[in-house]
C-alpha cells in the first residue's frame, strides 16, 4: 500500500497541491482496484482455459466445448446469483440442491402425469410447459418463503433451517407419488428450456441479441455519464469510457460468434434438410446453433439480479444488513422482511434452474440436483462473496460458476477421474478464498 492511497483526513485538498495530486492518483488506483478483483478472476479463467487447451491438445477452446460449457454453467450460475444475496446478508442456504430436486420432480410430474393423465388433457397441449413452469416457480417461492420465515421470524440459524431443508425436500420427492420412479419424457416445448441444438435460438437471432446488448452497454455508459455530468460530479475520462464500451461490445459479439460457430450435428442437419425439402450442399448443411435457451435465461437472470442488487432498495437493504444489521434496523429497514425476500428470490431461481435441468435431462430423477448446493456456494464464494457479510457481486458469482464449470469440464476432457476432480475443486475453492482473504487484508485497512 503506497502513501498515495491513504486518505489524509482534514488536510489541504485544494487543486494544485501535492496532496491533491496524490489523492487523485489514490482514487484512480481505487477505481482500478475494483476492476482488478474482477480482472483477476478473468485472468485466472484465461489461464485455466489456455492451460486446458494446451493439455488437451486444442480440444478445450473449440466452439463446441465452449458452447457446452455455457449450457452446463447456466443452471449453477442462476442459483449462485441468488446465493450471493443470501450470503451477503449473513445467511446460507444449504437446501438448494434438494429444493431443486423436489421442484424439478414436481414440474416433471405436472407435465408428464398430472395434467395429461389425472386431469385428462392428454400430452402435447401447447400450454403445458407454462403451467408446469409456473407450478415450479410458485413452489420454489413458497419453499423459500417458508424457510426464510423460520430464519427471520423464528430466529433459527439459517444453517440449521436449510440443513433440515436439505433432508426434508429430498425425502419429500418419494412422497409425491410414483414411488420415486424416473419421470420422463417432458413436454416437447419444456424440453427446449434445457438447451441442445434445437433448444437454441439460431444464428440470426443470436446476432440480434448481441447487437441489442451492445446498444444497451453504450446506452448505460452514456446515460450514467450524462447524469453525473448534470450534477457536476467527476466522470471517467473519455478514453476510459470508450475503452470500456469497445471491450464490452467485443466480448459480447465474440461470444455470439463462438456460439454461432458451433454448427448443428450433421445428422440433425440432414434430418432438418429432409423435413424442409432442402437439398443438402456438398459437405452438409451448416446450421449455426447460436445461444442456447438456458444461457439466454442465465443472461436475463444476471441482468435482473444485478438490477435488483444495485439499483433497488431491496438490494441496498440486503447489503446494509450484511454490513451492519444493527445499523439497518436503526435506519428503519424491515430486516426480517428483507431476509424472507432473499429466500423467496433464491427459491424462484432454484425453480428456474430446475426447469433447465429437467429440460436438459428430458425428465426427472430423485437424484436431481444432488450436491448442487456445494457448487452454488462455491461459485458465489470463488466469485468474491464473503461469509463475513456485506460483500459480493452478481457478475462475480457468474464468473465463479464459469471457473468451477471450466475446471470440471476441462478435467473431464483430460479423462481425470471423478474423485480426483473433487480433490482439485476442493483445493481450488479453499485456495481462491484464502488468496482473496490475503489480498483483502492488504488492500483494506
Amino acid at each position, binding site marked *: 500500500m503506497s502513501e498515495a492511497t491513504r486518505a489524509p483526513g482534514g488536510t489541504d485538498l485544494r487543486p494544485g497541491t501535492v496532496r491533491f495530486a496524490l489523492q487523485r492518483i489514490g482514487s484512480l488506483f481505487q477505481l482500478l482496484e475494483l476492476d482488478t478483483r474482477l480482472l483477476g478472476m478473468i485472468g485466472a479463467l484465461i489461464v485455466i482455459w489456455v492451460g486446458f487447451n494446451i493439455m488437451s491438445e486444442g480440444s478445450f477452446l473449440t466452439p463446441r466445448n465452449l458452447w457446452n460449457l455455457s449450457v452446463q454453467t447456466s443452471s449453477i450460475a442462476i442459483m449462485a446469483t441468488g446465493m450471493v444475496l443470501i450470503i451477503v446478508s449473513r445467511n446460507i442456504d444449504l437446501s438448494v440442491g434438494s429444493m431443486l430436486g423436489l421442484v424439478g420432480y414436481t414440474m416433471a410430474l405436472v407435465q408428464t402425469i398430472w395434467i395429461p393423465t389425472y386431469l385428462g388433457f392428454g400430452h402435447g397441449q401447447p400450454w403445458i410447459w407454462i403451467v408446469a413452469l409456473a407450478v415450479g416457480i410458485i413452489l420454489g417461492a413458497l419453499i423459500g418463503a417458508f424457510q426464510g420465515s423460520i430464519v427471520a421470524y423464528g430466529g433459527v440459524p439459517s444453517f440449521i433451517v436449510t440443513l433440515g431443508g436439505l433432508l426434508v425436500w429430498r425425502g419429500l420427492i418419494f412422497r409425491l407419488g410414483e414411488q420415486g420412479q424416473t419421470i420422463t419424457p417432458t413436454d416437447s416445448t419444456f424440453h427446449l428450456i434445457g438447451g441442445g441444438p434445437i433448444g437454441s435460438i439460431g444464428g440470426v437471432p443470436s446476432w440480434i441479441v448481441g447487437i441489442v446488448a451492445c446498444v444497451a452497454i453504450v446506452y448505460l455508459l452514456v446515460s450514467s455519464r450524462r447524469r453525473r455530468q448534470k450534477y457536476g460530479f467527476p466522470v471517467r475520462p473519455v478514453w476510459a469510457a470508450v475503452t470500456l464500451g469497445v471491450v464490452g461490445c467485443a466480448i459480447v459479439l465474440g461470444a455470439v460468434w463462438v456460439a454461432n460457430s458451433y454448427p448443428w450435428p450433421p445428422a440433425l442437419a440432414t434430418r432438418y434438410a429432409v423435413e424442409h425439402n432442402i437439398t443438402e450442399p456438398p459437405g452438409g448443411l451448416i446450421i449455426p446453433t447460436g445461444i442456447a435457451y438456458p444461457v439466454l435465461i442465465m443472461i436475463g437472470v444476471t441482468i435482473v439480479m444485478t438490477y435488483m442488487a444495485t*439499483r433497488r432498495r431491496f438490494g441496498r437493504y440486503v447489503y446494509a444488513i450484511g454490513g451492519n444489521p444493527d445499523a439497518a434496523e436503526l435506519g428503519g429497514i424491515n430486516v426480517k422482511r428483507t431476509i424472507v425476500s432473499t429466500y423467496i428470490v433464491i427459491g424462484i431461481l432454484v425453480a428456474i434452474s430446475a426447469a433447465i435441468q429437467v429440460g436438459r435431462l428430458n425428465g426427472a430423477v430423485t437424484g436431481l440436483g444432488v450436491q448442487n448446493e456445494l457448487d452454488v456456494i462455491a461459485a458465489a464464494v470463488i466469485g468474491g462473496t464473503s461469509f463475513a457479510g456485506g460483500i459480493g457481486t452478481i457478475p462475480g458469482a457468474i464468473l465463479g460458476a464459469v471457473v468451477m464449470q471450466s475446471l470440471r469440464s476441462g478435467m473431464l476432457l483430460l479423462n481425470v477421474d471423478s474423485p480426483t476432480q473433487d480433490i482439485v475443486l476442493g483445493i481450488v475453492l479453499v485456495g481462491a478464498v484464502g488468496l482473496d482473504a490475503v489480498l483483502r487484508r492488504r488492500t483494506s485497512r
Partner: protein
Amino acid sequence: MTVNPEPTGNPAPAGDAAPAASGSPLVEMRDIRIAFGGVHAVDGVTVDLHPGEVVGLVGGNGAGKSTLMRALSGARPPDSGQISVDGKPVTIGNPRDAKTYGIETIYQTLALADNIDAPGNLFLGRELTRLGNLDDSAMEDATRKVMGRLNPNFKRFKTPVKSLSGGQRQSVAIARAVHFNARILIMDEPTAALGPAETEQVRELIRQLRSEGLGIFLISHDIHDVFDLSDRISVMYHGKIVGTVNRADVTTDDVLAMIILGKRPEQISETELAQLH
C-alpha cells in the same frame, strides 16, 4: 470517565431547574420504565426538552442514559411511561416512528453500514428513488451539499465508509441526522472518537443547531463538553433521575457529586463531599 474534578468552594444549592424557554416542551418523557430481565435500567424517569435547548444527560456507566434515549429513538420502546411530542402523546414503536416525529439520533456506535458509501449511509432506510430505482446521483448530490457544510474537506463519496477515518465516519453519522430537518436531535457521545479539532467542529455544530431552534439531548462522559454546551443538565444514577439543574446554577463539582453519589447537591453532606476529593 474522563472527568477531572476541580476543587472549588461549597456547592451552591440548586433547585429543580425550570426550562430556559417558555411554552410547551418539544419532547416530554414521563415516568419511563425499561427493564432487562429483572434489572430496571430506566426506572420511572421524567425529562423534557424545549426548542432551542440543549439538555445534557449525564451519569456513570450503566446509569441508563443510553437506554432512555433508545426509547425516544425507537430502538427499544419503553415498557411503560408516556412520550409526548409538541404536547401530544405519541407512540414510538420503532426507529421509523421516531423519524416521522423529526427525532434523529447519532448513536455512539454511529450505526453505519461499513460496506456502503457515504451517500448510501446518509439515506439508509430513506433512499431517494426515481421511477422506483435508487437515484444515486441525487443522493450523492445531497450528501455533497450537507457535507460541504459540516466537513468541507470530505471528498470520498464513493468509497465504503469502512475506509474513512473516525472523524469522517462521525461526520457522516451527523450529516445523516441533520439532513432530514430534525427537530429533535439525540447525540450519544458525539465526540468520543474524535480528535481535538474535530471535537471543536462538533461543538460548534451543536451551538449552531441549537440557535436554529432544534432541541438536543446530549449524552456525554465528558463533563466539560456537557457544561460547555448544555442549558440544563439531567443527572441519572442507577436508572433514576437524581435531578435536573440549570447549568448556570451549578458548578462542575456539584454535577460530579450528583453523578457519583446519586444525590442532589443540597442532600450531600460535607463528609461525603470530602471523601470525593
